């Protein structure tokens, strides 16, 4: 029993972390008023970037750096399109997914002359040395360093929105860009920052998939986690802890799903067990959603001289 709990806990963390990174990034971007339903694309490209960096320098940390750079690059395209050009955010997002899939595939061929996946690259193994710490050691030993980075990021994001100037400005810009402008803020600069910041976090999320546990990039390895991250942003109601909690909620049910499958002679078809995370989400939403709409007031709306404002 205890065994099962520690397993579930540590698997929850591992499986929730990439989603949490990306979702926290997505939340920041959305709070500034720029939606990105293509988080999947950022994750894909940066998972690839992580493998490339790690391969080129034979150093996993360089892989993380690369992933962040790629994440920033992809989100910079999104910012250019949505913020400067006033493009439709959902369209740009879908373009990101295509571009990311495409670039990582083309890149595999160009860099490694390989199809489908990269060669094995250095990665960040679990923090096994921590096993010696009493009581929680065995638990910590199962975790990837990314999990620790996540907690730093979590506190950072929370602090940013709670206390910093920037956090306040991001919220202002997302709720009422015109008000922000009349208060002397640059809507574009703040939105650029937020979107690019989401690229950084999406980059970490993607990197965790390819070099935090695994040691290579595989096409389609993101497998919908970007969409789950998107779900976590909404489910967490654009609140740092809520978003984190929702990501972990997905992590937990994914872990539970695997755990249930390992129970011998269980008569439930695997597909139904695999459905659990998604069904659970729907149920939780149905039970918890309030009559009140909590969105971002100016979310999804471009704000630029190219688009006439009213």
């Amino acid at each position, binding site marked *: 029993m205890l*065994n099962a709990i520690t*397993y579930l806990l540590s*698997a929850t963390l*591992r*499986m929730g972390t*990439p989603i949490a990174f990306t979702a926290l990034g997505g939340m920041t971007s959305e709070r500034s008023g720029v939606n990105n339903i293509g988080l999947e694309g950022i994750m894909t490209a940066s998972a690839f970037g992580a493998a490339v960096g790690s391969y080129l320098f034979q150093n996993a940390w360089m892989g993380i750096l690369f992933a962040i750079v790629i994440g920033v690059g992809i989100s910079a395209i999104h910012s250019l399109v949505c913020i400067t050009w006033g493009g439709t955010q959902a369209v740009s997002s879908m373009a990101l997914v295509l571009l990311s899939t495409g670039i990582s595939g083309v890149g*595999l*061929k160009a860099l490694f002359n*390989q*199809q*489908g*996946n990269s060669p*094995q690259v250095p990665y960040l*193994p*679990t923090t*096994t040395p921590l096993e010696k710490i009493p009581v929680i050691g065995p638990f910590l030993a199962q975790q990837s360093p990314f999990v620790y980075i996540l907690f730093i990021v979590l506190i950072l994001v929370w602090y940013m929105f709670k206390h910093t100037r920037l956090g306040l400005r991001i919220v202002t810009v997302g709720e009422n860009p015109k008000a922000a402008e009349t208060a002397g803020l640059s809507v574009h600069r703040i939105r650029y920052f937020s979107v690019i910041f989401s690229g950084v976090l999406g980059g970490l999320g993607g990197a965790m*998939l390819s070099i935090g*546990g*695994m*040691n*290579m990039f*595989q*096409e*389609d*390895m993101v*497998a919908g986690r970007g969409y789950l991250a998107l779900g976590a942003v909404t489910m967490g109601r654009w609140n740092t802890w809520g978003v984190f909690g929702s990501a972990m909620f997905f992590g937990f049910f*994914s*872990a539970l799903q*695997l*755990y249930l*499958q*390992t129970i*011998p002679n269980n008569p439930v*078809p*695997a*597909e139904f067990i*695999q459905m659990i995370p998604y069904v659970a989400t729907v149920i939780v939403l149905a039970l918890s959603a309030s009559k009140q709409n909590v969105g971002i007031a100016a979310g999804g709306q471009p704000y630029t001289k190219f688009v006439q404002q009213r």
Partner: protein
Amino acid sequence: GGSGSGEGGGTDDGSLRVGLIASSMGTQSFNDDVWAGLEKAQEELGIGAEYIEVSEVSDAANSLRTLIAQGDTLLVVPSSEFHDAMMEVAAEYPDCNFMYLAGEETGAENVMSVEYKENEAAFLGGALAASLSQTGKIGTVLAVQEPLQLRYQYGYMAGAKTVNPDCEVSVLFTNSYTDTNLGQESAKALYDKGADYVSCFAGACNLGVFNAAKEAGEGKYCLGAATGQFDKMPDKIVASVVKSIDVALYDMIKDYMDNGTFNGGGCTVLGLKEGGVELRYTTMNDELLNSIPEDVKNSVEDLKNKIINGEITVPGTEEEYNTYIASLG
């Protein structure tokens, strides 16, 4: 790039051109091995070879036609989801020949088919894992509950139960061939439950399984698939359930070129007997190889012979498996 040879996949000298359609390449799976066989034929036999990745099932027929338009006369179709498209195009182009590598198809003169008995090799894999297991628990990570995967599953389980009726065999499905992280987590879940040998047959998810074996530390091992995969994790992969299409395909093409042999309308069955599938011990880690007790090797060899000479009929479906277990007593 889909073309095997430098320029547009063609040879100008009129030699054989072979085309392949595959749902995706680089999933560490069958498709890659098929392509490896074609590449070998390209190098050594001078054929032209190329492939098209088909992202939608409904594209398959169109892709075959495109290949034929490029001048390919022998088409290789490695997976069952393209079966209908292949039959449709085969009827349109009676002058082209088709090699169907995913099961029996005897309905057309220009189609030859190959049926694999993965369950026979998996049986040996299960037997080996169960014999080596210290905990009495083993597992396997599969992708999707399709017939091919189920053959593997029931063969593996039957093999394990044959050598150790008390052995607990856990089976996990990822429902994906590419979600390597899920593959890894699946294996972790199995190791965590006490399994010490985990096999896999789930495309790229296998790579996750190998990594999980490494992270699980001492006393935890895994079995590979495809053409061996020993290079992916030499310290942990004890043996692999091998389905060596590369060699088989190369041979078939060579035979086709040299002798014009084409088993049109027929089906070639590839099992242990024919050498189409096998359980291959690690080729990259002598220490690991030597750690396998001789008597275990012998009893596996023994089982293999029994399968070849028909004493054991390996189950490939749930029904057959239940009957088989009942027959064990």
